[in-house]
């Protein structure tokens, strides 16, 4: 099992400049047997995302824990993928690996990773319909949670954009 720093070093070797920032945060839990859990936060370049996920998946299969969270700013949307690595090894050794990258608002596109992690498909479909980020190479482009007859351009989870005015 690799230490978070080792994972970062390997990834850096592989994608170079694609890795923008990284941080390790530690969390403790337990009462008599206090366990330490290292959370690795990685910020990537959008272009390096697909390659990085493929690389990380080779270290150990990734589990996607939660649908992608997003932070909206003036020019960009930051998309956050909470992955887990070393799931199912028991003994409190799972490591959260939170990957994020910025998508400029002028070009709301990203690429699907369903070819690596097929289980992520529903989350990508949700991202596409809720945030209006076009996910390329998605095997199934239909809406999943929102009604099919919903107006175009209505993006429920975006802060400022909405096809329908509030009045």
């Amino acid at each position: 099992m690799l230490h978070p720093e080792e994972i970062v070093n390997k990834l850096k070797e592989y994608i170079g400049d694609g890795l923008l920032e990284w941080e390790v945060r530690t969390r403790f839990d337990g009462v008599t047997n206090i366990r330490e859990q290292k959370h690795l936060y990685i910020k990537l370049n959008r272009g390096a995302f697909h390659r990085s996920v493929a690389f990380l998946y080779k270290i150990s299969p990734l589990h996607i824990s939660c649908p992608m969270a997003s932070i909206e700013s003036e020019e960009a949307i930051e998309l956050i993928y909470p992955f887990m690595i070393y799931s199912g090894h028991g003994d409190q050794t799972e490591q959260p690996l939170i990957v994020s990258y910025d998508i400029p608002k002028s070009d709301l596109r990203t690429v699907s990773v369903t070819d690596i992690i097929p289980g992520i498909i529903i989350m990508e479909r949700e991202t596409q319909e809720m945030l209006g980020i076009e996910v390329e190479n998605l095997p199934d482009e239909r809406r999943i949670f929102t009604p099919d007859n919903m107006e175009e351009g209505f993006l429920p989870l975006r802060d400022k954009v909405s096809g329908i005015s509030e009045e």
Partner: protein
Amino acid sequence: MSNKETYKLQIGPTHPAFKEPVRFEFEVDGEHVLHADIDMGYTHRGIEHVSKERNFIQIIYLLERICGICSTSHPMAYCLAVENAAEIEVPARAKYIRTIVGELERLHSHLLWAGVAAHEVGFDTLFYTTWDIREKVMDCLEVISGNRVNYAMLTIGGVRRDIIGEVAEAVNKTVEYYSDLYSQLEDIMLNDMSLRLRTENVGILTYDEALKLCAVGPTARASGLAKDVRADYAVNAYPDIPWLKAITPNDVGKKPVGDIYDRIVVRVLEIKQSVDIIRFCMENMPGGEIVAEPKAVKVINQLKKVKAHGIGRYEGPRGEVSHYDILDNNECPVGVKVKAPTYSNIISWVPMFRGAEIADIPIIMSSIDPCIACSDRASFVEGEGKKTVSFGELRKLSMEKMNKIRRGL
């Protein structure tokens, strides 16, 4: 397979065999299912959006209502996420109480599931039995929390009620009751011939598929994938329990196949595991405070000063519940992302249905213990006349209506 034409069979959104609205479109050849397509989104409530307008304490009760059955799991994951972001230390006793309530919830959820599954295969004796037995744990939860569902036990930084005196006695009695009953329950659920015939080699999800599709909870464990947040990730008092590990069919000396029978095995063994965990916690519970900061208003003020991300994960009865919260110096979080276990397992239905018979559809559907309402939590409501109404608009409409209804003011 012959080269006859295939048919499309549509089941749902509402159907007597399903407990919640979800729509399937099956491509069938005679009695055999060739392919299944799933359509969701019939119980949207926009909870993630609404969360952005509630303060941190109010959200706990909102999230509790994502699902009635896992009504501790969602607040638990949320509280863990906020505590993770704000680095709040939870008192030791609160960790144990959280564990006990969580395990009691698992106990009742697994019994409920056993009843539903038994009903789906037409074995109503078992349905009556499990639901009858389940009343005891519901009563116990009522004594602890003051209600049968929606326990409202958790708060940020601890729990709201202590388990002492008569309440502790009630918990111990419940533990005894289930330990005594367990062997009989195991016998009925694992050895009954008719149940085995209906469930063995039906709805198979292989290990590789479970891994690739990110399945969670008993669904994954039945396929031999030993994923269990309690064992993998340090939460609550679980790290203290030395013998805790993810249960797979290997524990009864059976090679995991990933069929429905294996899912029954995992859940039955987990009933025993839950009882043992509760007993362990009752015996080893430390004393002390039960909450880091009892004043709700102070907690809100404290969280107003935090700018961080937090992740909270917890093993609910159906699998991993995961929340990702973003705090940004505000009374309300700027983002709450919720994942219910069924969300991860929906996509596992597709391989399970492949090659199944039409008569097995209801039991395969309920074998993952689905909770559609949990998965459908994040969109908007359709108003009258098939028009999508924005949230603000909807609220305005309902307020107007309410004002009209109020009389004599």
